């Protein structure tokens, strides 16, 4: 794959070494409608249960959290935080938390795309990655996946269904990247256009709050958006170097997103969006 990227570099000039796909979510635009969660479930063949409101045991790759500034009326303010896998890059001696702990190398960091993968057929379900992930993005298959009769015909053929006993998570719709790449190669290109590879949640968001693209490519919108002075990342201090950026003009939202303990989190209550 390296040659491909060198070619791409020459072709495009401004490109750095590799793709580095990432996301910028504008929290001031997010209405908390949950369309991203639904689109993600449909796109990635996520099973659901009769009562899917049991959030701690349900399968959700994209999850919308609701936070509040905890102040009484009229100063009350809320914000929704859509949270896919953060695809941590790590920095220096900090590693991608899940990748460094997985005993069977079932999850890996792609230096080609910056996407953290999950090999379902290699995972044996020790759940160490779930314990290590500071963002709770990883979910375990506590049951065998089932769908109502007839609904299995609507499963996405590009995404494998997962068996019970393995861990899964958001893949930034990696199958879409593969499809876009195949198409580009067939057309003799070595470079993907911005609109050729977009995640399901990005396309589903009615408010246009989610932007997806190559963080290394100055022509992609995310490259500019992430440089906003209002941009931040969740639990930034941990050094996980995530590739999902959030933007909010509200101070308390940025503070809540970055803070993780003690005084810094004071006055901010975290509530799961039901």
């Amino acid at each position, binding site marked *: 794959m390296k040659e491909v990227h060198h070619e791409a570099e020459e072709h495009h000039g401004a490109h750095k070494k590799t793709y580095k796909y990432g996301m910028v979510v504008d929290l001031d635009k997010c209405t908390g409608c949950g369309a991203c969660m639904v689109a993600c479930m449909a796109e990635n063949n996520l099973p659901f249960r009769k009562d899917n409101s049991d959030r*701690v*045991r349900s399968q959700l790759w994209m999850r919308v959290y609701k936070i509040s500034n905890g102040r009484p009326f009229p100063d009350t303010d809320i914000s929704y935080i859509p949270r896919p896998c953060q695809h941590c890059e790590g920095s220096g001696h900090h*590693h991608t938390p899940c990748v*460094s*702990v*997985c*005993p*069977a*190398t*079932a999850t890996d960091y792609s230096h080609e795309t910056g996407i953290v993968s999950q090999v379902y057929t*290699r*995972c*044996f*379900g*020790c*759940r*160490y990655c*779930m*314990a290590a992930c500071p963002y*709770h993005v*990883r*979910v*375990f*298959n*506590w*049951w*065998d996946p089932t769908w109502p009769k007839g609904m299995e015909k609507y499963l996405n053929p590009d995404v494998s269904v997962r*068996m*019970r*006993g*393995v*861990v899964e998570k958001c893949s930034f719709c990696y199958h879409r990247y593969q499809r876009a790449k195949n198409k580009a190669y067939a057309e003799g290109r070595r470079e993907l256009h911005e609109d050729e590879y977009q995640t399901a949640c990005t396309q589903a968001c009615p408010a246009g709050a989610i932007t997806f693209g190559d963080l290394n490519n100055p022509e992609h919108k995310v490259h500019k958006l992430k440089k906003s002075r209002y941009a931040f990342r969740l639990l930034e201090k941990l050094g996980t170097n995530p590739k999902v950026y959030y933007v909010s003009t509200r101070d308390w939202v940025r503070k809540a997103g970055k803070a993780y303990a003690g005084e810094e989190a004071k006055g901010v209550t975290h509530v799961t969006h039901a």
Partner: protein
Amino acid sequence: MDSASAPFDSALFPEGTKRCQFKWFLFWVAVLHGPLMIGVIAALMCWGLALNVTYLNNNYPFGLWIAADLGIIALGAGAFFTGFLRYIVNIEELKNIVNYAVVIGVICYATAQGILGVDIGQPLRGWFIFWHANVHSMLTEVAFCITCYSWSCASSISP
């Protein structure tokens, strides 16, 4: 004890003890098998009905079992180290306890591995930890260590 009425294996009894009645023997065996059967039934449920029966969830993927597992491993480590002191460092005073210690060590390490075999989501893929080993993971180190220690303890009590 009169040698004529003593059981044929009385020479193996520890000094000053005698065999209890058969009904008491059965009673205590039943008591000891109680916890064991709970474990066996729990294991069969985990394998048969998937891990949702444990009531663990995505926020708490590890349960109390990890404390039990670490406790058992720690006890086994004591046995392993006793074996090391007796057989490698040659501390003579340990000769009376080393056999029991090593037997306990084997039981502990085997039990720890057995618990892990129940707890992981896909037990049949457990060997991937050796085949696809990620050397940066502490769990890989733990798996290699308890496997080596259990083999070491088992070999020291083998005939």
